[in-house]
C-alpha cells in the first residue's frame, strides 16, 4: 500500500512541485509527504535540480548587432515582397487565376484542347510500340497510352455536359487555393 502511494507520488512529483496538479491529487500528495521521509527527500532533490537548472539555463542578453541583422533581413524581405498572402488575398488570386484559365480554355476551344491531348496520347502510344519493338518496357507505356486515351475521353464527355464550365472553374479554384496552402505548409512546417 505504501509502495503504491510512493510510486504515485514519485510519478507526479514534478507536476506537484510545479503547481500543475489538480487540487485533490495535490492534497493527497501533500498528506503522503507528511508521513513519508523517502518522498520528502525526493522533493528536496527535485527542488535542488530545479534551482540548478534555472541557474545553468539563465538567459543571457542577445548578441550585439543581432537585432540590426534581423531588422535588415526583414527590410529585405519587405522589399522583395516575400510575405505570405492572407486568406483573402489567396482567394482573390485563386479567383483571378481560375477565371483567366477558364477564359483561356474557352478561347482555345474545348475540342482543340482534346485534340492536343489526343496528340500527346498518340505520341505516347507510338513511343510504346517503338519500345515494345526493342522489348524495353513497351507494355507499360502502351497501357499508359490506353489509360491516357480513356482519360481524354472522360474529360471530353464531362465537358459536353451542361454546367461543365462551372464545375471546371470550381475545381480549378479549389486546386489553386489548396495548392498554395500545401506549398506554404510544406515550406514552413509550422
Amino acid at each position: 500500500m505504501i509502495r503504491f502511494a510512493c510510486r504515485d507520488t514519485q510519478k507526479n512529483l514534478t507536476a506537484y512541485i510545479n503547481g500543475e496538479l489538480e487540487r485533490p491529487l495535490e492534497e493527497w500528495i501533500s498528506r503522503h509527504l507528511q508521513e513519508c521521509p523517502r518522498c520528502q527527500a525526493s522533493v528536496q532533490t527535485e527542488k535542488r535540480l530545479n534551482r540548478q537548472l534555472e541557474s545553468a539555463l539563465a538567459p543571457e542578453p542577445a548578441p550585439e548587432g543581432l537585432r540590426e541583422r534581423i531588422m535588415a533581413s526583414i527590410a529585405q524581405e519587405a522589399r522583395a515582397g516575400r510575405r505570405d498572402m492572407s486568406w483573402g488575398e489567396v482567394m482573390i488570386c485563386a479567383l483571378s487565376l481560375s477565371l483567366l484559365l477558364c477564359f483561356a480554355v474557352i478561347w482555345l476551344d474545348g475540342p482543340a484542347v482534346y485534340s492536343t491531348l489526343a496528340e500527346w496520347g498518340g505520341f505516347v502510344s507510338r513511343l510504346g510500340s517503338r519500345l515494345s519493338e526493342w522489348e524495353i518496357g513497351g507494355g507499360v507505356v502502351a497501357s499508359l497510352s490506353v489509360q491516357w486515351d480513356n482519360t481524354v475521353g472522360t474529360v471530353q464527355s464531362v465537358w459536353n455536359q451542361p454546367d461543365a464550365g462551372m464545375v471546371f472553374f470550381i475545381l480549378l479554384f479549389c486546386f489553386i487555393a489548396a495548392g498554395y496552402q500545401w506549398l506554404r505548409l510544406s515550406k514552413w512546417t509550422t
Partner: protein
Amino acid sequence: MKNIIAQVLAGNTEAFAYIVNRYEARIYNLALRMLRHRADAQDATQEVFIKVFRQLAHYREEAQFSTWIYRIATNTCLDRIRKQKREQRQVGDGFVFPGSGGETPDCIVENRQLEEMLLEEIRALPDKYRVILLLYHQQGLSYKEIADVLNISVQAVGTRLHRAKALLKKRCKWLWSEEEAEPHDSVCMPGYAKKPDRLY
C-alpha cells in the same frame, strides 16, 4: 500586439521592431540551448523572425502570439537539429556560462564547471525532452502554454518533463550524492540558494 500586427501587415516594417525587441532574447536563448552553437542560434533567431514576418497574415488570435512564435521557434530549432544530425557535425564549442554575482573566483570556476556538466547532460537529452525542459525552466511557460506550442496534451507535457528530469537525476547524481558532506548548492553555489524569479 493586435495593433502592431495590423501595422506590419499594412506595410509598416518598422513596427516589426517591437516584436523583435520583445522576443529576440527569449528566442535566442531557446535556440542557444537547443542548437548549442552561438552562430547557429543567431542564424536560427533570424530565421524565426523572417518566418514570423512572412506568415504574420496567417496568425490567428485564438492562440496567444507568444505561443505562435514559440511554435515557429521550436520547429525551426528542431528542423536545424535534424539537419545537423544528418550532416553529423561536431558540437560542443562556443558556450559561455552565466556566472552569478558575489562569488569567489574558486566558486565561479567550480560553479561553471558544474553548470557545464549539467548543460552537457541537458544536451544529451532526447530532443522532445530537452525542448520541454527549456520551455519550462528557461522560458517560464506553463504546462498549458507548452502543450499549445508543441500541439500535445497537458498530460504529455507533464509526463515528458517528469521523464526528462528523471533522466537528469539519474545521470547527474554527482550533483547531490550522499557521499558528499554538503550538497554543492549550499557550499559553493550561492546563486542556487535562492530560486530566481520566473524569467520574462
